[in-house]
């Protein structure tokens, strides 16, 4: 009894927190769904795709009798190819994601959550199986799967590491990593290699605050990390801006190289841009892989 009540209470709490983010992510997803349609291929599925003249060899039960009765010829009903993929999504929940450089921006974590949720919404609508990496859930499909996914994303989990833990995933699975990916390149490479070794395809989405790309500060500043890094004092921040930008470019180039080596995709999303762009790119990448 008490357990039920507690669950209920927790569910209500979650429900109270859900709507704004869910609505936002659904809205983001809706704009994408208008632009992308199905697999556009004949295959196994439930959605009607086309009528085709009966050809010898077609199974008789594929004949659409109603359509055939309207004309002289006999027609076969073909459905759109719908193959369910299993996709594990991950978003960075470490403290470094809770950052914004200006008041009019949103936290990086908020953008990451939104991207993941919207992507999940899209994938589930397309019939894929989706799970949040790190929770141990099996990828499932359907509305209930989305709900469970939402709960998993919105549960207040704080990771200390900016990279996903190594999990044994089935072969030919897909992973999507959304995070700031500011960890050293070697760490990222090791982690990716662990997944790739099991034949897992992946997609990297780097979510960055604009300040992290441009370093727009001036003057004498003592920088402090968000994950317990040692502070550092820069005498004149404006003088190191170019060098910093160079380093960031190097880092991103490294990530890009890693993605290319392992056959993953890589995209950068800045929090001052609308999330639709990133989502579209991500979805296209997923669709291409799923379709290939």
């Amino acid at each position, binding site marked *: 009894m008490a357990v039920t009540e507690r669950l209920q209470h927790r569910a209500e709490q979650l429900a109270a927190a859900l709507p704004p983010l869910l609505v936002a992510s659904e809205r983001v997803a809706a704009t994408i769904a208008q632009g992308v349609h199905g697999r556009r291929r004949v295959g196994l599925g439930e959605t009607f795709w086309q009528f085709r003249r009966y050809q010898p060899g077609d199974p008789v039960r594929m004949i659409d009798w109603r359509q055939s009765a309207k004309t002289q010829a006999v027609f076969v009903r073909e459905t759109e190819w719908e193959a369910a993929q299993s996709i594990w999504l991950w978003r960075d929940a470490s403290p470094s994601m809770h*950052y914004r450089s200006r008041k009019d921006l949103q936290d990086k974590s908020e953008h990451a959550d939104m991207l993941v949720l919207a992507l999940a919404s899209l994938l589930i609508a397309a019939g894929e199986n989706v799970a949040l990496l790190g929770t141990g859930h099996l990828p499932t499909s359907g509305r209930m799967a989305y709900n469970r996914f939402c709960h998993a994303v919105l549960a207040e989990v704080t990771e200390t590491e900016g990279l996903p833990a190594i999990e044994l995933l089935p072969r030919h699975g897909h992973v999507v990593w959304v995070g700031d990916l500011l960890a050293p390149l070697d760490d990222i490479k090791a982690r990716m290699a662990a997944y790739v070794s099991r034949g897992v395809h992946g997609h990297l989405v780097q979510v960055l605050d604009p300040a992290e790309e441009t370093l727009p500060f001036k003057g004498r500043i003592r920088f402090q*990390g*968000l994950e317990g890094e040692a502070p550092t004092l*820069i005498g004149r921040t404006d003088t190191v801006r170019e060098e*910093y930008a160079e380093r960031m470019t190097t880092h991103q180039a490294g990530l890009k190289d890693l993605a290319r080596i392992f056959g993953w995709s890589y995209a950068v999303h800045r929090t001052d841009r609308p999330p639709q762009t990133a989502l579209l790119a991500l979805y296209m990448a997923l669709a291409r892989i799923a379709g290939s």
Partner: protein
Amino acid sequence: MLALGPIAFASPWILLALALLPILWRILRVIPPAPRQLRFPAIRLLYDLRQQEQTPAKTPWWLILLRVILATLIILGLAHPLLNPSGRLPGSGPMVVVVDDGWAAARDWPQRQRTLADLVDRAERDQRPVFLVTTSAQTGETPARATGPLRAAEARGAAQALLPKPWGTNRKATLAAVERLPIQGSAHAMWLADGLDDPDAKALAERLQRFGSLTVIQDGPRALPRVLRPPERRAGDLVAVAERVDPSGEERRWVRALGTDGRLIAREPLVFADGENRATSRFNLPTELRNDIARLDIEDETTTGAVVLLDERWRRRPVGIVSTTGFDASQPLLDAHHYLDRALSPFSEVRRGGATDLLKRELAVLALPDVGQMAPNDRDAVDSWLKDGGVVLRFAGPLLAGGGDDLVPVRLRRGDRALGGALSWAKPLPLAQFDPGSPFHGLSVPPDVLVSRQVLAEPALDLGDKTWARLVDGTPIVTAEKRGQGWLILVHTTSNAEWSNLALSGLFVEMLQRIVGLSRGIAGSSGDAALPPLETLDAFGRRSAPPPGVLSLPRGGVDATVGPHVPPGYYGNDLARVALNMSSDLKALAPLDRLPSGVLHGAYVGAREVDLRPWLMTAALLIGLADVLIGLALRGLLPIGQGAAAAMLALAVFVAVPRAEAQSFGQTPSFSQMPRAQVQRAPTSGADAFAMSAALQNKLAFVRTGNAQLDEVSRAGLQGLAGVLVRRTSVELIEPMAVDIEADELAFFPLIYWPITPEQPLPSSQAIGRLNIYLRNGGTILFDTRDQADIPTEVGGGGPGAQRLRQLVRGLEVPPLAPVPPDHVLTKAFYLLQDFPGRFAGGTVWVERREGSSEVSPVIIGSNDWAGAWAVGPNGRPLFAVVPGGKPQREMAFRFGVNLMMYALTGNYKADQVHVPAILERLGQ
């Protein structure tokens, strides 16, 4: 002391530190500002950038400037700058400060004290001892005081404790005190003079000058105090005289009369004309109000010289003259009241009437000129009033001589004694000098006052004690007896010139004044006891409890001179008090201008020395606070940007600007500054709303009967009539209005239509009253009984409406009525009509029966139910059929309505004969 124009520095060597400011500037530029704290996720990418140049970011220039200003302010503040420095005192040796602290100094005492404090400050800076000499004695002390030598701190305390005294200065005693000062060598003397001259002023100035040098500080003669002398009574008014020293220029002031409780009774202008140093203001008030006046003062004048306390001597005492016959205006000189009236009215209020009537009001003296036997109830009333403290003054005459009552102080012989008649060898006798025990003592007896006839007292043992005045042969001519609290006085001769010429003499007036003065008030204080101080005035003219050391006034001490032992104020007890005023024996004021040559002059006005150190230090503190805030903001520890920090800097600088020191010394608020009684705006009530809607445009009105259906008919009828009036005539009407005669104001309506129903409630008496007012002021009411019955003249007849009408109008001022005569204005006000049909035809219409009257009949009564005929529905069709019927009848009904409205609005000028020819012509005759 370093002086730079109006600013001087008391510790100028600290200014050397200003040379360090450029060094400070350099140092501040070299020291980097504290780093901002910033959280940054991509910190790992920043780690190895340390090899970059470490040239620190510069502190912004404006922040350095702010800090340099801060340092400058602190240095300047420590140097102790003074605005308007007073400079050094002249001369050397100790400073002798002579302070006039008489009443005249109270006028601007705070200024004097500031000047004194400044002097003490300067003496302190020069480290010179101070001798403080005051020219007025302390309360209860005789000599003026000199204290010293004092150190500056002691002198400051003594100066702050100084208060002006409510009496004058005694410069002779001051001179003696100055002589005794233990001063060797030279000294500098400062005399804070009150600006008034006296015989010893010059000697004092010369003595002070002999110390070394003398500075006399005084204001010009215009700033000297004004003096208000005790008022005189002239022809029943109080006339107050005020004086000033400088006669040039016109000056307008006010004299206030205040009651015992401090409330303002009257306020009269006081205008000093150009070239005059005297001005008068006259108070003409009802006796009761005048007797309430306890104090006169000149408004906004803060010395006791401008305050006059009033006591019984200024009260007008009402005197009643018992007069049963009335005033015989044809032969006033023979009248017994005439001389009394003339003698009393300059200083008393005289009333005439029966004794009982007179005693109903407050009265001081009751005069009975030659009354023989009084009516018993009058006599009892007079007797009881007498025993309660009244003064009854009787005069003899033929009636009293013929037989009096017992309301006389001595037993009288019947008959009178004639002196110097045709059959007598005795001559008329003059009055003897008054005895010392008599209230008349001191009055001079003119030798030509002769008494030729008098009534005689029976000899008795106490006759001598009761006698206040005698003839030269010793016969009592005025006797008196104390009865209860009051006095019964008999003058043994007449109050007119019949028996003696006493009534023609000035002595008569003076005797009457003394007698009136005996009445309550003075009578109570006529004992031998000294008068203890009751309430005294201080130098500012404020009432206070008497300070210790004040002596009692001796008996008759009204003429005592104000001094340290007897400050001005009230003496006596609560029942009888005597006012002692300072201005009553003040000599004429003269300005202090006869000073020896070589005296330095100064004035009280002038820029005060202002110490700028606290202001500078406050500014430095504020800038320091601003610096801290800006520092925090620059390090990112405040949630604001740089723009806000700059704004805060501006704010800090603005706040730090020293503001002018507000000066407000205890000015006693004058009555002119007091808020007057606030006129409260009544909230717009329902009555107001009714008046607004009723008054803005002409409209017809009908009385709300309580019968909704009937009211609706009335409304529709008047609406129909209004439509006809607007169409056919120049009368502009809007929607008719229902009025409630119990509540609504009727004055707005020229005509009120009042349909009668048998069940209508009777109006209340208030409503009747208001209807009467309405009718009296030109309103017209059309009563409509609506029962088609003739209203007969005799009581009891008529239809139910007529009967109810009779009950309704009971109490209403209905004039005599008559059927409308054929030539009445109603028949020709607009249309020519002879009958006045409504729904019904034929009923008689009654109007006021008045021949040649030029007024509108206030009441018109009929039974034809006109509203029914006028009533039109919303579609413009009539609501009711007319009986017997036909369009002509309805048209005639409307014509009656038009005539009626014209009659009510324009009056009856149509009755004028001027129109007769035109009307005859139209009638074709």
